[in-house]
């Protein structure tokens, strides 16, 4: 047990020595790897921030029910009762036509035009807040309510929230694809770097095998080397992404002071940071495994 621990400590210190022996080359490859990992991380931060910003808007699905112009207050009461009877309905608010006209006059520049009309063109309406954002449910409610007596038109105002959800889904899928591609690239680069390391240590490997090193013994320092490269690259990626996110947050606050409260940059949480660095370490390990295995097979074939 202690022997195995010593073997691992040896391999770790050997790998650290290898990295320190070529400080510039090691730094360069770690920064390149870190930048490759930082790209999808930044894309994820942007997507998360966009979703969080959008969530700040009123996204509760609601349905507007417009009555015909000849609807009496009694008709309105009956419609209201029908609406309140639905289980999916969270709240119903009545907007009398006079109030709608007043709001329109105060909010727009149409006051003169509206004043010129001899009667109020707006109908009584209900604004119904729904419990479900599900498009199919909302659609069913819409078609059911448009058959109620004295109901002229039902408008379900959920289109844009559905679009937003769809865009967010698409964004996540594109992000996953980019992350997968760049992860493969990182593993590939590490595999190549480790293969070069194996090549330069060919003599040592062959002599070690002759005097009793197993394949695991030969692989161990290279696996540590790859895992360390991944670990350092993950840390660099985290630092790069944090720096860019902080810069972006600063720029946003300067450019748009009015909306600063709504536009926010959401960076990775503590667990996500640990997961990122851990994933980078595993990528390095996987790349190293592929690189060292491939080169050892070639050595064996040469003999």
């Amino acid at each position, binding site marked *: 047990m202690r*022997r*195995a621990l*010593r*073997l691992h400590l*040896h391999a770790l210190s050997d790998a650290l020595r290898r990295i320190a022996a070529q400080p510039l080359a090691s730094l360069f490859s770690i920064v390149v790897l870190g930048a490759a990992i930082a790209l999808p991380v930044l894309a994820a931060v942007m997507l998360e921030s966009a979703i969080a910003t959008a969530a700040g808007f009123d996204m509760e699905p609601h349905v507007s029910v417009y009555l015909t112009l000849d609807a009496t207050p009694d008709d309105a009461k009956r419609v209201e009762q029908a609406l309140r009877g639905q289980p999916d309905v969270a709240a119903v608010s009545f907007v009398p036509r006079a109030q709608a006209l007043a709001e329109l006059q105060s909010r727009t520049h149409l006051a003169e035009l509206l004043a010129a009309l001899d009667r109020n063109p707006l109908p009584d309406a209900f604004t119904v807040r729904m419990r479900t954002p599900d498009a199919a449910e909302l659609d069913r409610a819409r078609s059911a309510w448009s058959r109620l007596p004295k109901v002229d038109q039902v408008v379900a105002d959920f289109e844009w929230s559905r679009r937003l959800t769809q865009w967010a889904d698409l964004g996540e899928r594109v992000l996953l694809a980019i992350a997968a591609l760049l992860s493969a690239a990182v593993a590939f680069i590490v595999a190549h770097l480790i293969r070069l390391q194996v090549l330069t240590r060919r*003599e*040592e490997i*062959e*002599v*070690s*095998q*002759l*005097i*009793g*090193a*197993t*394949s*695991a*013994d030969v692989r161990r320092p290279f696996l540590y080397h790859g895992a360390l490269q991944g670990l350092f690259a993950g840390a660099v990626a985290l630092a790069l992404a944090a720096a860019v996110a902080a810069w972006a947050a600063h720029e946003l606050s300067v450019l748009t002071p009015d909306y600063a409260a709504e536009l926010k940059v959401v960076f990775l949480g503590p667990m996500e940071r640990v997961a990122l660095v851990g994933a980078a370490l595993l990528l390095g390990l996987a790349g190293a495994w592929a690189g060292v295995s491939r080169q050892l097979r070639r050595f064996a074939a040469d003999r």
Partner: protein
Amino acid sequence: MIRFSAVAKRYPGGLEALRGVSFEVAEGEMVAVTGHSGAGKSTLLKLAAGIERASAGTVVVQGQNVGALGESALAILRRRIGFVFQEHKLLFDRNAFENVALPLRICGFPAQEAARRVHAALDKVGLLGREKALPVALSGGEQQRLCIARAIVNRPMMLVADEPTGNLDSDYARAIVDLFASFHQVGVTVLLATHDEASLARLGCRRVALAAGALAAGEPA
């Protein structure tokens, strides 16, 4: 300690290095393998040390059938055998101490214990003062002795040496032969290949003669 039964070794390309070789080396025995270059001496030693596998027949070393061992088990068997390579196989970017320490590092020895053993091994071959020297700074005889120090640092029960006195002048050769004789005296099984008559006479041990990959006629197995 070592038992060959009808062993043959063919290399890719059709070269038949050994055929029908059967012989035994008892525990604690010293045996010299003789023959011209190309007779199969090196191949026989590599098979005896678990570095290569036989194409046919069985090789049993320290009670283990080499042909039946997996790669890792075979590597671990090699740790119990000290091998002195004809071409030395020293690492030229490591100093004498590090070269000798390599087998102990592979086994995961504690650093202090390893340093003690490396010093003892270097002392045994007369290189104690040269531990910081790189192999290029050592003479041919010193490189040979460094290789021997690496072979014995693990305190193996069995030493295998391929032409340990090749390319050395007679004084150096005599010192090397005496070194192996001293290992034999403390109970280590020694199998070495040589075609140097002076060394053979000085060793005075049993001989196994190879000719064209087979045991020479009249040789007592």
